[in-house]
């Protein structure tokens, strides 16, 4: 066991050095659209404009709150920056067929994807939902945030505007 620990420490310190690269394309995972079609996460794109990738679930109160808050502002955000919100539901087969009526009843205009066995969530190393990634026009993750507090959407939008203007936010 000692050996393993030494190796792990070594491994971690090497990581620490190689960490300051921010280029960051998405992994290739098959998820589903609301009408049941297979959709590969490599195909998530917004023609060079920023993307908000939001991991959520119908049973997660703060997740729904965050998407509600963004929904109120979404039209304005899209007009100003062209940002696309991709809402990835991690509802499993117990509640995944409830996602479509849930989303439509709320009149959300997002691209909604289903990740019923949390494969995409795990590939993105998300611990708990809600977890938001902000991607630049090239599909690179430039910012991420976990949990939701009322008002977080304002900070997120400040970053979206910067990314839409091509600013580097990797040190914020």
């Amino acid at each position: 066991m000692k050996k393993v620990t030494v190796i792990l420490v070594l491994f971690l310190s090497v990581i620490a050095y190689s960490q300051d690269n921010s280029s960051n394309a998405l992994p290739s995972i098959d998820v589903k659209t609301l009408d049941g079609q297979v959709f590969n996460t490599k195909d998530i794109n917004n023609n060079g404009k920023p993307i908000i990738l939001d991991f959520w679930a119908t049973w997660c109160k703060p997740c729904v709150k965050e998407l509600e808050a963004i929904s109120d502002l979404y039209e304005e955000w899209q007009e100003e920056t062209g940002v696309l919100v991709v809402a990835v539901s991690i509802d499993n087969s117990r509640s995944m067929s409830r996602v479509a009526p849930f989303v439509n009843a709320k009149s959300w205009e997002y691209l909604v994807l289903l990740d019923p066995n949390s494969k995409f969530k795990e590939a993105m190393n998300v611990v708990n939902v809600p977890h938001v990634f902000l991607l630049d026009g090239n599909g690179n993750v430039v910012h991420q945030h976990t949990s939701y507090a009322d008002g977080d959407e304002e900070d997120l939008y400040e970053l979206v505007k910067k990314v839409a203007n091509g600013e580097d936010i990797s040190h914020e």
Partner: protein
Amino acid sequence: MLLKSKPIIAFLIFASVFAYSQDKPKGQLHGNFNIDAQQYNSDSLIGAEKPPENVLMNAYGNFTYTYGHFSAGLRYEAYLNTLEGYDKSYNGQGISYRYLSYDNDGLGITVGNFYEQFGNGLILRSYQQKMLGYDNAFDGVRVSYSGIKALTIKGLIAKQRLFWETQGLVRGVDGELSVNELFESIKDAKTQIIVGGNFVSKFQSDKDPFLKLPENVGAGSGRISISNGGFVLSGEYANKSQDPSADNGYIYKQGQALLINATYSQKGLGIYITGKRVDNMSFRSDRGQSINNLNINYLPDVAKIHVYTLTAMYPSATQANGEMGVRSEVMYKFKKKSALGGKYGTEIGISYSRVNDIDRQAASDTSAIGVKGYEGYTSEFFKVGEEEFYEDVSLSLSKKVNKKIKFHVEYMNQTYNFLALRGEYDHSGNKMVYAQMGVADLTWKIKRRRTIRFEAQGLFTKQDKQDWAMGMIEFTMAPNWFVAVYDAYNYGNHHEDKRLHYATGTVGYTKNSTRIQLSYGKSIEGVVCVGGVCRVVPATNGFSISISSTF
């Protein structure tokens, strides 16, 4: 141990050094950490025990390295020692999960550990849910191919994780076909049809001195999904060959499961109906195992998921040996600026769930129901059993009053078969619990980035521990801090000395993808369920800390 992984570690070191030595590294390293630690005090009033270690911890870290079409990853888990309420077989630490995978042009190959789900999981689903201490990860080889038009196929041969070991042998194939993709003429038709099917077989040798047990048990399912505009209809039917096991009392009956979902939605309206029938569908890679160990399949629960503390006091749980359930729900949003919608719109919801046992009759005149070594019973497919397991009716209303105030209220009437779902009588010696519950949740935005949230909950029942009330105040200072205090009070308990308070205070700090949370207080003994899979949690009293980070 699962962990003869030195070559992989060596590889990862090599890969990271390699990444570092390049000016512009193409490889990427990501991961996360999660630590949950708790200090325990003994509290005889609430029944909280102090473990001899005083402090316990569950922790893990994941690392994923990707380089072009190639990826590798591992997870280190440490249970020093395992938190109360989780299986103590986790005690220890090591690399519990490691894999290498390659993905290009529709071909995917993984060696080592992986998670997989076929269809709804009625036949095969491996996943991990740390909150339940659930992890039935596969360890073996998986191949998938989506290079053929409209078709996705997957195949696997693997063992399964059981704490720090791997056991069993599972073989499976799954195919899914998009009918519309197949024919150019209907590709963009309004009606979209997807069909799929799978077959899974497990092997376990027969060492039973009396029974002749099947060493290979096969199971398969077919599924279809039809969508047309706002309508989606989907269903899956599964069948399992003879599989005598500890779960079913070593009977030789075949297993069956049917799951049907129908939904309709349009802007502002959602209708959801689901139905399920399960008969003798426990499916494990070791027939002698029980609780959450070595499940190959997953049988989703149909009842509504309740998210408030008191409404989740009596959670429904899947009965793999047999159950029939339905649920229907309507969600509606009154438009903004309408009479009932007000300035911001009003959302209402109504939901009904009901789960009963299946009907069972003796297989022949000469045998009793459930005798070991025989067919066990017969069951008419559409006949509902008399025993009621669960029922709830709930109503909810959510409204944003103005820019500062939003509220959500809900009411629920619940019937809960304590004996069937928990395996024992409730605290007052009853089999059935009949409860009514109410929740009010109010959010008040005091000013920009400062929010206070109040929750008031009540649970009223003549059974179990009788009436409860709960209040909570949460203060949030975006973007970093939150403070919350709550108290659940069992004020109506028939035993005056058990009218106890369970108070807890919590402080949390979040920065980007890192979160730290500190709590002190008491938690109620009960059951935590995710998706119908449950874990019993003991009462606790003490400090707890959670740290998580994604990079």
